[in-house]
């Protein structure tokens, strides 16, 4: 067990980052999404079976803020999908460690979707392994690895987690 609270971590500031992050995504403010990450970053939404075997192949992956922007471009300008509402239910945050590299956190995430004429359903049940750093005066994700248990995605994963 890690000692808690971890010295030097402003839990409120970390929590505020998540509040803003999930707020932006739930409100589909996709243009704001890449800015929650550092310029060079690692974003993955990855099946648990890949993660556990050490495979890096992901359902969604970006290695830079630019690739995150491209994901938004794809979503808003090239992809075709039925309209839907996504809502994210993060569990309370656990701060795992904090050192020169940044602050590592973990929390569970339930991602739920609602399509027209359909009952609401779970898209992903996941655990997020994040690395948060201070960057240009604010907190940003350097890494966000969303490891999902879900064996079968109900058709598409459209919006980010």
């Amino acid at each position, binding site marked *: 067990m890690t000692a808690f609270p971890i010295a030097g971590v402003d839990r409120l500031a970390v929590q505020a980052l998540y509040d803003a992050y999930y707020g932006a995504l739930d409100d589909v403010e996709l243009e704001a999404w890449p800015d929650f990450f550092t310029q060079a970053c690692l974003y993955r939404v990855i099946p648990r079976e890949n993660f556990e075997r050490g495979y890096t192949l992901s359902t969604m*992956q970006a*290695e*830079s*803020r*630019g690739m995150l922007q491209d994901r938004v471009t794809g979503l808003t*300008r*090239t992809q075709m999908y039925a309209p839907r509402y996504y809502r994210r239910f993060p569990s309370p945050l656990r701060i795992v460690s904090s050192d020169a590299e940044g602050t590592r956190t973990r929390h569970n995430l339930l991602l739920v979707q609602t399509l027209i004429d359909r009952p609401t359903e779970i898209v992903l049940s996941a655990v997020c392994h994040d690395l948060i750093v201070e960057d240009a005066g604010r907190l940003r994700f350097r890494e966000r690895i969303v490891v999902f248990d879900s*064996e*079968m995605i109900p058709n598409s994963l*459209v919006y980010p987690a």
Partner: protein
Amino acid sequence: MSARREWPADTTGRVPFWVYSDPEIYRQELDRIWYGPHWLYCALEAEMPAVGDFKTTTLGERPVIVIRSAEDEISVLENRCAHRGVKFCQARSGHAKDLLCPYHQWAYDLNGNLLGVPFRRGVRRQGGMPADFDPAQHGLRRLRVEVVNGVVWASFSAETPSFREYLGEKFWKHYTRVYDGRKLEVLGYNRQHIAANWKLMQENIKDPYHAGLLHVFFVTFGLFRADQKSAVDLDETGRHSVLISCKGEQEVNDVTADMKNFQGDLRLADPRILDVVKEFPGEETVGMITVFPSVILQQQVNSLTTRQIVPTGPVGFDFHWTHWCYADDPPEMRLRRTRQANLFGPAGFVSADDGEVIEMSQQGCAAAPDEAALVVMGGREIAPTDHMVTETAIRGMYRYWREVMGL
């Protein structure tokens, strides 16, 4: 119910919508197609490197265990205890010395032979199996297996010709272009459930007409477009097909004028996803093979996958993606393939369009079983073409399907 089902008079130009939703038709498809004289995709050989390594999968609706039963042998066994029918192996993959059903501890060897039955002779002279009980008659059902250049195929039927004959010489060539005997390695998996009939997935990859229209990402960045050099090839029976294309560049011309969604001004902020290298002989950059009925073998630029179809009823299938690389790929090639995987799978810039649209097809077709789809793009012929403005491969599949189904 199927007694009432009649094929439309325009035999190759129409596909009646009842093929996508009639439960009796679906039941017959399982028997005649999935459990009939066809080879079904099971696994990559690389998924079970050592004796005792296994993975489970589903062929048609039947759960099976794919296991390396000897150094040079892979067995495909029905995952159903011969005693009371338990699907006894619940793991996705693993390693086993023998196969044990937890219910009454019946044990089988790696070839599915029944090794032992607890209390076979009874307990203190009470109970036990009858004297005529012969363990040799109660093994797991074993399927025919062929391992072909790193891919494991199985068939339920004794009538199925050899895999090479099943493909035909032309498709053997298409197959061995990518599955050329080099060792393969798994990069990772994607799995999704699509609420649509399994044939719609096959049709999607037999339909190059949509690729240059629906997939704005493809079209915009020149990866697959109607004006590029391309071809559709079919085997003799019409059941297998391949879409072949050569990638171009992002450009505006007379053809893009017909694409309402073409985005000539779009630029990627980080174009490493399009860092494509040529790796196969010839100028083709895309080779999408549909091996009837169970799998799509994808080579899209440097992204290589097997997309296995597992029907779960008339209106649904599970879609299992195995992304792979060659075992001797250097790290940068693995990274390139991993990056390009953003185009495919349930969140793929391109493939997500397909999952969405075929579910929308299902919604439209199921509501009007007595209506029919029109598949006359490129005429009514069933023959290879040197362009992609055609639905010939869909017509080919249904000609074969009707033959097998006796419709």
